[in-house]
């Protein structure tokens, strides 16, 4: 079913996406559009990782915004309050989030079923409370200010255009490593677990270990996204990393199409741009989300990428039928 996207279209789509994103800032210098695309990219990084957990390992997490938050706050506090180098504080932030993921993974991923979803949901709520509670460090509900910009070989990435290129460099890297992972024996083991974990275990796959690693991987990518967000916005609040944000990440995965990198980009892009397009009617946003989810679930259970693929398959089948009819006439 995935053959067409695998073989013919895929390199083309990447070429279009890459060249478009490289050229975009040259003719579109308006900050608003650039920053929208930056948010798309930040979400895309988190969604790429979450897709490995959801579509490959078959586990749902409702706490990935919390990992973004841990990354963002750790990096933000270290660089803004203690004067650490932003790159170093980013690395520490990502390590901290990874450590949290590790601790959560040990008890929850040994169990089967929806324990991870419930545990991460609780984790997300607790982390948001903690972001407010430690207000001496985090600034509480009024947020953490003055997070410094990242710099690259002495060039401060304090403009939209500069940060845009850095960010999409990160996105490209995330696509590359996620793709490698998905296409490797590691990805294969995760897909086997998703299909039937008992069977996978009997085939020699260490199921808890692989699920744990998939979870940690997704949490690490989410925290990278979070740290990038912090150093781009220079200002974060607990509201950026709540339960709703976690759910939006899951929606992006489901909408875009499970298990493809293009789907992750699409899902992140559409859900990020949508609220901007619906600026006029704040309540309408929720309705539109709801309608989208219902429609996708009903008509495209494999997400947009799967849906497009299905349409291509149908057209191809019709073509073959037509050709057979034509051949029949000449026979």
């Amino acid at each position: 079913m995935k053959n067409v996207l695998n073989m013919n279209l895929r390199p083309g789509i990447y070429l279009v996406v890459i060249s478009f994103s490289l050229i975009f800032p040259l003719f579109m210098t308006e900050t608003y559009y650039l920053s929208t695309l930056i948010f798309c990219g930040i979400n895309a990084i988190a969604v790429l990782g979450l897709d490995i957990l959801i579509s490959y390992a078959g586990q749902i997490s409702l706490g990935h915004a919390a990992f973004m938050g841990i990354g963002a706050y750790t990096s933000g506090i270290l660089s803004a309050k203690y004067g650490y180098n932003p790159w170093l504080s980013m690395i520490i932030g990502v390590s901290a989030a990874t450590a949290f993921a590790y601790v959560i993974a040990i008890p929850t991923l040994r169990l089967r079923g929806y324990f991870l979803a419930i545990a991460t949901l609780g984790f997300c709520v607790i982390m948001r409370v903690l972001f407010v509670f430690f207000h001496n460090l985090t600034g509480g509900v009024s947020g953490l200010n003055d997070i410094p910009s990242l710099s690259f070989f002495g060039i401060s990435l304090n403009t939209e255009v500069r940060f845009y290129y850095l960010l999409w460099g990160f996105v490209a890297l995330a696509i590359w490593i996620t793709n490698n992972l998905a296409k490797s024996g590691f990805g294969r083991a995760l897909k086997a677990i998703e299909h039937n974990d008992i069977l996978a275990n009997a085939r020699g796959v260490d199921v808890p270990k692989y699920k744990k690693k998939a979870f940690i991987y997704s949490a690490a990518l989410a925290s990278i996204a979070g740290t990038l967000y912090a150093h781009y916005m220079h200002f974060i609040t607990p509201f950026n990393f709540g339960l709703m944000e976690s759910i939006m990440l899951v929606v992006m995965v489901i909408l875009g199409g499970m298990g493809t990198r293009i789907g992750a980009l699409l899902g992140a892009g559409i859900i990020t741009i949508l609220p901007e397009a619906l600026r006029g009617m704040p309540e309408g946003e929720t309705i539109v989300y709801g309608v989208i989810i219902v429609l996708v679930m009903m008509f495209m259970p494999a997400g947009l990428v799967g849906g497009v693929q299905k349409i291509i398959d149908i057209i191809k089948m019709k073509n073959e039928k037509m050709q057979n009819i034509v051949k029949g006439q000449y026979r």
Partner: protein
Amino acid sequence: MSELLLKIEEVSKNFKGVQALHNVSFELVSTKIQSLIGPNGAGKTTMLNLISGIFPWDSGSIYFKGANIKNISPHKITGLGMSRTFQGGGLFGNLTVIENALLGFHSNYRPGLWSSMLRLPSNVRQEKKAYDRACELLRSFKLEDKKDMPLEKLPLSEQRLVEITSALAIQPSLLMLDEPSAGLNDTEIHDLIDLLFRIKETGISILLIEHNMDVVMNVSEKVVVLNYGGILAQGTPGEIQNNAEVIKAYLGE
């Protein structure tokens, strides 16, 4: 040359008060084909699930290559050199033919997170090696042309071969097959019997659960009969065929 490969000692298993197996003991000597037969519900598949570590058992011991495998997780038991197929097909419908076969190499080569995501040379090399070996195995089953096909496009008999390929990729010393002939026609069953002998010749022992008595009597050196969770009889196919108890259990009174 033959050594004790599998030893079942007084194993019992209850499922919420229902006694599935009661004090079952038997042995399996290497490079033999041994069958486990019995009427429906006799506990054959349960026995296989206990041996492969899917369920824990209540009392008794199971030794594989001399090691007690109580409470060892299935992937570790697989790593010791035991693999199995499942009744009704233990395949991964979301993977292609070759991906199913490749999965069998997991117990020997465990792809790590870092090496996979960075495509380190070690990972690429391992993957290539597994891929070549998987192709080789599929070629021996005349399935190489179909390696990139989704599983559902294959007829049942070929799907079964894919599952056996995947189980053989583990390079097991013991291969356990749960009703491999179910749903196959006469020609395919004939091919299956050939295949069982071919596998045995490579030095792999087989524990076979089977309903088709032609297959059982043709291939086995030893037959163990289970009935109501206990051992009814064990012996050579000839002995079993003439055993009055066995005939009674199968035909009723």
